[in-house]
């Protein structure tokens, strides 16, 4: 026994808990992906089919050929791709202003921005619907782009402010002494040095736009501008009949997210941590 036995014991406990954690985390995802490749009869069996063999693509056919899910996905992609660079660049300018200068009203403005960040999307989306309705931005991709650009700003400002603040003040001072204008300083010094922060905030923006539900639910109502989450939600009301097609749509919805998680995990964790912990 002794120290060696204790170490083995600790190992068993740790590995056992990790295995449990993996089942808990991956189980639901596995179930959806497995469901997406079940054929019509495997979907409704008792006991449930845990391993669909052979995998079938009929749900994908149903979702993407018979139903216009690719159009919803295209809407999602457009809104995410347009709102992200807009939101990140507007936020970067503001974050630079907040992190490099001291000015009157600064604390109050930062508090206001944080408070906005805490607002539930729905509370903004509901009145926005009535305003957009008057100016033709309801059920319009541009309306969603505007909404996401604005809604993601506070988060991006806080995140980028933390990254800009980490750039050593001496570098900024040196550039200013060399006669760089504030804009030069921002573009040639701050942006390159805070690049990981910009990447992190762009990734989070893409994810938020891709996953967003409340604004899309209220501001869109036809195929013209509805996004993938809305399509998935729409299929639920049909009382389970479309589990297969929904699983296929859900699988499509999580694919880009997983690609992100694999390739840019470092940025993502950095960004989420800075955004969550520093405010």
């Amino acid at each position: 026994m002794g120290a060696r036995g204790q170490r083995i014991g600790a190992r068993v406990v740790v590995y056992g808990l990790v295995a449990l954690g993996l089942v808990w985390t991956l189980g639901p995802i596995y179930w959806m992906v497995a469901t997406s490749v079940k054929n019509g009869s495997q979907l409704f069996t008792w006991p449930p089919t845990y391993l669909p063999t052979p995998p079938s693509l009929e749900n994908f056919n149903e979702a993407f050929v018979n139903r216009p899910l690719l159009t919803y996905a295209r809407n999602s992609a457009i809104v995410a791709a347009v709102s992200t660079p807009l939101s990140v660049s507007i936020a970067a300018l503001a974050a630079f202003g907040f992190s490099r200068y001291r000015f009157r009203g600064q604390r109050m403005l930062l508090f206001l921005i944080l408070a906005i960040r805490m607002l539930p999307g729905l509370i903004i989306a509901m009145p926005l619907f009535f305003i957009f309705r008057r100016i033709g931005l309801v059920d319009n991709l541009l309306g969603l782009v505007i909404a996401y650009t604005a809604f993601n700003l506070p988060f991006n400002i806080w995140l980028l402010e933390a990254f800009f603040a980490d750039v050593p003040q001496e570098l900024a001072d040196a550039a200013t002494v060399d006669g760089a204008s504030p804009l030069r300083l921002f573009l040639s010094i701050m942006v390159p040095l805070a690049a990981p922060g910009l990447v992190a905030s762009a990734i989070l923006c893409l994810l938020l736009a891709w996953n967003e539900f409340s604004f899309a639910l209220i501001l869109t109502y036809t195929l013209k501008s509805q996004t993938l989450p809305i399509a998935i939600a729409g299929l639920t009301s049909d009382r389970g009949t479309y589990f297969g097609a929904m699983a296929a749509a859900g699988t499509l919805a999580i694919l880009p997210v997983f690609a992100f998680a694999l390739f840019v995990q470092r940025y993502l964790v950095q960004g989420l941590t800075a955004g969550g912990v520093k405010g």
Partner: protein
Amino acid sequence: MIGAKATARPVGRSSSVRTSGRMRRALTPYWFILPALAVLAVFIVGPVGYSFWLSFHEYQWNMPAFGTPFVGLRNYTDLLKDEDLVRSIGWTLGFVAISVPVGLVMGLVLSLLLNSPLLGRARGLLRGIFLLPMMLAAVVAGFMWRMLFDPEYGPVNHLLSLVGVSPVSWFSEAMAARTAFIVAELWLTTPFVVLVLLAGLQGIPAEVYEAARIDGASAAQLFAQITLPLLRTSVAIVLIIRTMDALRVFDLLFILTRGGPGTSTTTIMYYDYLYAFQYYQMGLASAFSFAILVVIALITAGYLAVLRRADRD
């Protein structure tokens, strides 16, 4: 571009060059934050302000001819008279009181696990995997759990039947639906807890542990006397942000239970949505939005206080 405008801007009547230079410099930060403030003012503060205005008016918006007559505080007093609403506040608070602490404990266990040196090089990969749910759309997560809890064909009832539990109708009994909802919500949100606590754990210097070990501290003592106190700020952040998130939960609910059966899982945000888009009572919905907003502002202030204290420490 904005910076260039700032330098090119004439500085009015100030005569001395030094004063004008200082004024220009004083204006510089405002030019940088101006675009963001303009967007926020027009598309966030404006609509919220409009909503505040609406909260003192009656706005039955499916009947435009009715207009928006001023009703004073009636919307606010009507809220309190709505028994369903009061019930939904009760359930939302109950849900927060269960989900937040349980999620904290689960997140603590997972983050300690992921911080364990016993995992060796697998740690990075495992972290990536355990964080996955927080990157998924709540809608997709809700759909996953709907399939899992499906009373007829779902694996949850099947696995329960293997240990002798008779099938549960997850979405037609209040307690069952609430349980299913809490489980799904924990699945979706615990990764955030792990993320914050893990960052906190990694911030504790290894020397602190070594010194305590040399002094003969047991694992339990290390945890209670070093880890927990040093995680204080992280735990506070988790509790505040999670409380806020749980209070405003909506997407997941929309897919999983739609507030049902009856109104047994209707949370405050879902009720707010129903007021506006089911009953077309935008005045009432706005009043309710504002009540929620005040609560959230108070929590935000608490959050800032925690961050300030953390900065000082």
